[in-house]
């Protein structure tokens, strides 16, 4: 069985810290929203803010890392194999077909992952950050002409922030589940922890036809 080093040390640190912060902020955020009482509002609001600043700090490092290492290219969307991957998750996974995508160091995410993560990075995250900072600095914002001109109020800001939080929650549910879909349920998670991914076949470029053929054989 081949092993391939996919996730670098910083990447893993960034991923897991971010994961912990996001889960914690979903928990505290929905408490601030008023969905339930867990830590107490004051504690929740306080910790949510601290976690937000921590995540912003982490993100500054992560952005720096993405650009200096060229890892940002991992998120360039590709149309290639999208349908094959979709087909795998809807049919092949039940029939024992192999995954049509094989991770390499240059291309560690399958086409669906690329799309999903890009959407998180370019849409959900910015939405959370912008609305969150506006939420935090609402008083300063309200004192400017921007608020008066746009009719922006705290209710609208909170609405956007909450909507973005729901999107993040939904992403998280899907992401957590899909992390169990490696060749063993814990394979992807292990890889994300150690950096090394087990691969059951030698690395080679695989065509959709090959995958289909193997799927057909298995069924």
């Amino acid at each position: 069985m081949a092993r391939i080093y996919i996730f670098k040390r910083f990447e893993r640190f960034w991923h897991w810290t971010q994961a912990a912060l996001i889960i914690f902020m979903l928990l505290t955020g929905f408490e601030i929203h008023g969905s339930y009482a867990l830590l107490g509002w004051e504690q929740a609001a306080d910790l949510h803010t601290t976690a937000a600043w921590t995540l912003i700090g982490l993100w500054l490092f992560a952005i720096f890392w993405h650009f200096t290492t060229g890892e940002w290219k991992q998120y360039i969307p590709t149309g290639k194999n999208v349908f094959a991957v979709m087909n795998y998750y809807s049919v092949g996974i039940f029939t024992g077909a192999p995954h049509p995508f094989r991770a390499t160091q240059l291309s560690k995410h399958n086409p669906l992952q690329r799309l999903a993560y890009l959407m998180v990075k370019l849409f959900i995250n910015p939405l959370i950050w912008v609305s969150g900072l506006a939420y935090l600095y609402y008083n300063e914002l309200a004192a400017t002409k921007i608020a008066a001109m746009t009719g922006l109020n705290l209710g609208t800001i909170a609405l956007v922030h909450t909507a973005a939080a729901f999107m993040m929650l939904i992403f998280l549910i899907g992401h957590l589940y899909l992390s169990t879909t490696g060749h063993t349920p814990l394979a992807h998670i292990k890889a994300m922890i150690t950096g090394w991914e087990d691969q059951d076949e030698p690395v080679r470029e695989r065509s959709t036809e090959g995958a289909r053929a193997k799927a057909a054989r298995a069924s």
Partner: protein
Amino acid sequence: MRIGIFMAALTASMLLVSAAHAASDPATDKLLKSTSDHTKFKALQRDFDSGPEVTKVCLTCHTEAAKQIHKTQHWKWEYRNAQGQLLGKKTLINNFCTTPVTNEAACNICHVGYGWKDDTFDFTSEVNVDCLVCHDTTGNYRKPAGLAGNVVTKAMEFPPGSGNIIKPIDLKKISQAVGKSSRDNCGACHFYGGGGDGVKHGDMDSSLASPDKELDVHMDALGLNFACATCHMTQGHQVPGSRYAPTAQDKGDAHVRGKEYTTNPTTCQSCHGQAPHKKIAKLNDHTDKVACQACHIPTYARGGVATKMSWDWSTAGKLWPEGKPLTKKDAKGRVIYTAAKGDFVLGEHVVPDYLWFNGKVTYTLRGDKVEKSDQPTRINHFEGSPGDGKSLIWPVKTMRGKQAYDPVNKTLVVPHLAGNDDTAYWTNFNWEKAVATGMASIGAPFSGKVDFLSTESTWPITHMVAPAKDALRCNACHASNGRLEKVPGIYIPGRASDHAGWLDTAGWAIAALTLLGVLGHGLGRVIVSKRNK
């Protein structure tokens, strides 16, 4: 020898240092407080038979004092607000004792004058100004009810024939001990508004005479020990901070020496400024919407004295079969019914009501049309809205009551309550007679019929400021059904009624469907893998 000189110098310098810091013995303390010792004034070394005699002497030195008093609300009992309404005890009708009019002998013991027994009182008289009620430091000064603010210098039976003897006071001693007004001076009237201790305001009662820190962080007798005038910074006898001229929102900075201010010096901001929270800066983001008092006065009537929350005059007049007026007390021994006044609801540690307040208060005046309906008539009404840029969320006491009105002319009425005459309600328990006398005294029409009307009045809560540790915590308002549940026009994180229902429904629904979807998917994988084994 050298050591001896050194020691002597050291001792001398220590003595000098202690002299410079000085002032720990009572005599020096007294000396440094005032340039005048009133006991040494020849004019005060005599007996006085009446209050005006003392005033006459005061005015020989303080030549302009009475003229200053004549210009104050404390003297005039009149105030014209920005809307042009004539306010003040002289004309207003409230839903406590209603009005001093025709009850002057009893009520006007709280006038800063002598002898206002009816509408013939001379408001231009200088000797009728009562200096002592505000400047007595002995605590022995008394203005007994029924004597129109006059004092008693020789033991007298009052009311005549009652066997009740009023002890005289020593005006000589009192006049020689005058000083700055203390909480006791102001409190002698303001703690007892509405006819008894704590009755009216809820945030002012006799417990503030010597409060601890928990009750009032500023007036804390063993701490900051503020007098009323520390905030109500009086100049020329004009006391700022009247509720007739409230400052709902003070956008100014803390007042510093050397600058001139025209704004109300009584506000919290006039000392604390706009960003008083140093440890938790986020709290400063509240000061543009929430009055300081809203969080820093968690409850009122906290000092062990109950305040009246409602007063139902319509049940007054119940007598025992033998004709004696009925009185009821609650389990704690507090009076909750008297024949003279009707039923009361008392409250202690009361959570205020909260509303948007912009400083404008509109009153229902004598002669204004009132209508009996499901909605109580508003004796006064705090105006304000979330969007007017002038309002803050204020804590208030809402006083509810039922009081006499004229159902034909549809006006509030002046009832003649106190007096030893045939028409006073407290003597004969007849509303029609009492109101006829009251309305005649102001030349107002009266149909002869009396009915009772539900009324409501609003009182700002601004005293009994608790120490920071006892201020409200976030979740008091950042919650559903919290203290600000009914305050409209503002988004409060944590208050469910502010949520966009569609977003929460859609958000949770999609999240749940996603979860179901992945669980189903996972179940499928489990089943398939078992089958393949």
